[in-house]
């Protein structure tokens, strides 16, 4: 063994670190205020080492996994380690600083063991509003990042002395629903404090040097697992492409292209042939492209691999500056986080279909299917109702797809109709399976669903952010496509199909019918 540490101590430390990250997620999930956190669990917790390499993760939201592997590294490029002090908590949301989109706010706490910087606790949470042109901060017509909300560079909001009230109130003054946001912020600070406490105890028991040795060993183990998994894939070059429905404000489909090269224990993913950055908020960051790769390789080759820095040493990911996946800092990105990332996964899956189709599912409802109702809640407070909608899973070689489920990069849950009706001025008329929406095949794609919302209160707004309206979920091996997404607005006896990226004002009596896409079929029927 190359590390002077026994394999049992490694395991003991691994369990302790994972428990620490899980405790962070517990604090945020249970006590934060943003609806996405509480019902849907759109949050992640990570512990990185002093350089920013991932050590442990709590709730494993795949889309955040790749991103958080870079957050601290990029943060350290802006804030040198000498400036960090015990008790600090830094907040940031810049997409270019190891980020994804403005609503995902990261809280970073440096952790000092035996007087030296040893690790960082990172709590990422999707805030229900981050300011900008439209309630909920998904501005469909955005053409630049500044329209999307408040941009927070690394900002020391908390020190050992406590919260910096001035900075905090400056930030909150720029957001809708400041009371809720303050709750989110406090939850994130508390989560990182909990992780600090766990690490201090671990250090008392084992000492920093032993923990460091265990981390090195865990990195090596994950790297070995990943290399073993890649070696199990047939060598070759595989091309895949998938299309965004449009560039944002309703233009033409835009292509995400990947070339995968498997060579022994090494895999490279080259997205250079992807289209140029689009005008609207469907661009995303290279970190999100990495997240797509990390998810896809795990799903296809090694689902049980421990996520940490070592995991990714065998992978090489390239994006082209100026493309959708590496657009430059001025471009809007809010939808790219959960839409374009899924396009990247679909492109990778289509490429792998040439190598290992038996391991894959056909195309599924790979979109957040997001509707945001802005306005005031029943209790009079400002509150956005942020709802993602699941559809059918793609079929596989050995089974039908599952109805109404989140697939690939996302795993948020729906908000029960009873909660929607109790908290917001919205009535849910029906919620049923969209029968016949799954693609035909030897095995059928899963069914999507229908949910109909009726507007009861004045002054509500609606934002849509979804894909698969134009380009349907694909079939595999001769299976048929699933039915595409469709959102229809019924007003005064007339109806109109809504675009995938829109902001509009609603009036009392409006009915919004959401029909989610079915999964693709697998094999010829």
């Amino acid at each position: 063994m190359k590390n002077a540490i026994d394999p049992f101590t490694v395991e003991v430390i691994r369990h302790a670190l994972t428990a620490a990250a899980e405790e962070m997620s517990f604090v945020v999930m249970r006590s934060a205020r943003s609806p996405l956190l509480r019902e849907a669990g759109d949050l992640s917790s990570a512990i990185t080492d002093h350089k920013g390499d991932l050590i442990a993760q709590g709730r494993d939201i795949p889309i955040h996994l790749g991103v958080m592997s870079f957050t601290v590294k990029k943060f350290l490029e802006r804030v040198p380690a000498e400036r960090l002090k015990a008790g600090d908590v830094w907040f940031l949301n810049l997409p270019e600083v190891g980020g994804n989109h403005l609503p995902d706010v990261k809280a970073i706490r440096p952790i000092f063991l035996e007087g030296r910087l040893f690790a960082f606790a990172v709590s990422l949470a999707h805030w229900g509003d981050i300011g900008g042109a439209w309630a909920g901060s998904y501005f469909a017509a955005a053409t630049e990042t500044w329209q999307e909300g408040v941009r927070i560079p690394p900002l020391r909001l908390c020190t050992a002395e406590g919260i910096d009230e001035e900075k905090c109130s400056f930030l909150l003054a720029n957001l809708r629903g400041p009371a809720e946001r303050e709750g989110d912020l406090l939850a994130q600070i508390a989560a990182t404090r909990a992780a600090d406490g766990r690490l201090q105890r671990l250090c008392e028991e084992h000492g920093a040097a032993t923990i460091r040795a265990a981390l090195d060993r865990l990195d090596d183990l994950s790297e070995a697992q990943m290399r073993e998994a890649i070696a199990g894939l047939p060598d070759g070059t595989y091309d895949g492409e998938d299309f965004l429905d449009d560039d944002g404000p309703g233009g033409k489909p835009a292509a995400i292209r990947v070339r995968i090269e498997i060579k022994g224990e090494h895999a490279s993913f080259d997205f250079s042939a992807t289209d140029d950055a689009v005008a609207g908020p469907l661009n995303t960051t290279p970190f999100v492209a990495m997240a797509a790769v990390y998810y896809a390789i795990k799903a296809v080759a090694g689902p049980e691999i421990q996520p940490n820095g070592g995991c990714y040493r065998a992978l090489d990911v390239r994006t082209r500056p100026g493309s959708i996946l590496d657009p430059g800092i001025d471009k809007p990105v809010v939808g790219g986080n959960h839409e374009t990332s899924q396009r990247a996964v679909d492109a990778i899956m289509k490429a792998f279909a040439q190598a290992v189709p038996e391991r894959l599912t056909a195309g599924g409802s790979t979109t957040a299917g997001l509707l945001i109702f802005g306005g005031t809640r029943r209790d009079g407070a400002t509150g956005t109702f942020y709802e993602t909608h699941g559809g059918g899973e793609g079929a596989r070689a050995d089974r039908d797809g599952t109805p109404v489920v989140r697939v690939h990069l996302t795993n948020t849950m729906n908000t029960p109709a009873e909660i929607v009706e109790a908290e917001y001025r919205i009535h849910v008329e029906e919620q049923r399976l969209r029968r016949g929406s799954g693609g035909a095949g030897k095995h059928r794609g899963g069914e999507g669903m229908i949910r109909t919302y009726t507007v009861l209160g004045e002054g509500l707004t609606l934002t849509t952010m979804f894909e698969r309206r134009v380009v349907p979920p694909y079939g595999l091996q001769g299976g048929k496509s699933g039915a595409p997404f469709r959102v229809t607005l019924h007003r005064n006896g007339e109806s109109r199909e809504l675009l995938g990226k829109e902001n509009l004002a609603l009036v009392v009596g409006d009915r919004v019918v959401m029909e989610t896409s079915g999964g693709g079929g697998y094999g010829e029927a």
Partner: protein
Amino acid sequence: MPDSGWQVGIDIGGTFTDLVALKPTTGELRSIKVPTQRNDPVASIKAALAAAGLTAVEVGDLVHGTTLVTNAIVEDRVEPVVLIATQGFEDVLDIGRAGRQHLYRLDLPPRRAAQVPPERRIGLAERVDYAGKVMQTADATAIADAVGRAAASGVESVAVSLMHSYANPAHERAIGSALKAAVPFVSLSHEVNPETREFERTATTVLNASVMPIAARYLDRLQREIQGASLHVMHSAGGMASPEAAAHRPLAMALSGPAAGVSAAQHIAASLGLGKVLSFDMGGTTTDVCLVVNGAAEISTDSKLAGRPVRQPMVAIESIGAGGGSLVNLSTGGLSIGPESAGAEPGPAAYGRGGTRPTVTDANAVLGYLDPKRRLGGAIALDVGAAEAALAPLAKRLGVGIVELALGVQRVANATMVRALARVTVERGVDGRQCTLLAFGGAGPMHAAHLAREFGIAEIVVPRFSSAFSALGCIVADMSYTQQQAVRMLSTHWDAARFASLHDGMLGTLMEPLQRHGHGPDDITVERTALVRYVGQSYAVEVPFAAPLDLEVLGRDFRKRHREIYGYATEEHWEMQSLRLRALVARRTKLGPLHASDGEPKPTSVRLCWFEPSAPHQTPRFDRDRLPSGTRIAGPAIVEDAWSTIVVPPGYTLSSDAMGHLWIREGKK
């Protein structure tokens, strides 16, 4: 409770059925273990009674913990159900919460299929809003039509779950009374689980309906065959219920067996005056841990069983898939324990029944903790050679000695359990290091000291009857009923009259079965818990309160608990999400002192045991049944009874008290 006759507790487990019986007039205690008769729990009960030398007429109360409902659900042997739902929401079980279990496993189905197939879903045209206001009345024709279709399906059991029925159950009641004339079993969602979130409420109601016929048949047969005794069953919240109540809501028995163990833990904690206790029940394939504060177990109302939501009040047991029979795996990713297990057959290699893959028990055998000369329960002989052979390939691959590996396996197994202990304490804002570890079950007492050291716990109790602890729990359990109901009231818009009417209505429902049993208001204790959160949060904090409710005090207690659990609190206003009431009649079972022998403890043998890799220790072994009370033994030492082994490592001291409990503490105390 009548004072005459034996108080009998019976716990039917997968392999053995345990009985503990107490004669209150004399204090005489009996304890027996018999093999469980597969698929015939009634026969197992009769066999246990016979083995204990008891006839039905001698039995006063018979309380039993059963896995009947649990097994039916886990093994998917439930009965078919018709679901009547609000029109437009018939597919609620397919849609669920749309999440998936396995993030990266494309090969596994993301979740279990809906329990009710489309042809057994009936939509009823009706609608009540979130505040209970009727938006569309369920007319008589529609009800008659739905009932007719349900009856025509030929299915015995019908579940009714209508939108917002917790706020206004009128429509469910109307269809429920019409159904009672048409089908044998009816489950109404506002009775089973009067809380918000339509999927979880419906799934819980359907699951209850699907086990109703099974529970009714079983309880009926049991009552006929043990005529004379007063029969009760353990429910998941750690109390006992009448057979009628259990038949009406069988899902409340989903955790019957494990809850009996927690009931015993509550009793021991209270009788020993222990403020914070972690119960640690390590068996062959799983380990259950539960936090008991001031003699009361924490309750959870949002659990899952075999992937299906079970929103019933249950003792908050954290169960992990690691036990004595768990397999030790070594892959590229490192060393791990479980969840795969060697099972009852062939079992660990050390049991000499053909097992060849290494388990945690094999590691314990190699370390010398298990005596090869003794037979486990008089039946299983230990084969240390087979245990060594099973571990040898792993030791070779890791480049370590076999003892080093065995000690390592112990540490890793304990590390997985430390995580479970951390979860149940951290999530309730308790510092686990201040708890006493209460160790029971087959393997609990063997791992307790090492586990306690790993977690930072200073004090361990291995209680009397530690190998039949759930059966003990049955004879000490209070008779209790628990209900939780949605309230949803803001502190700023408090409607005292509505709250009072909700509270009193629930209380009436809970008192009814107790009063029917002959208990007056003076016998009955009521415990009240408010589930409170800040507006915007989804998870509530449990805040106990006394009647009459004082909003100021509740708000202050809420902020205090919030700070304890999450590390911060704000002055925002709050909301009462739900109210939980528990009505109980204390059983007041008293165990007498143990009639232990006097004098010095005498070792039965001395063997080499390993506690660290450098050298083994000459370790004396003692027979638990012959241990004098008030004795002190310095570790290393091993104490054995017929069913379990208690390990006292070097640096620890074991002492026995007059009640027969064994205490293990670090140092020489």
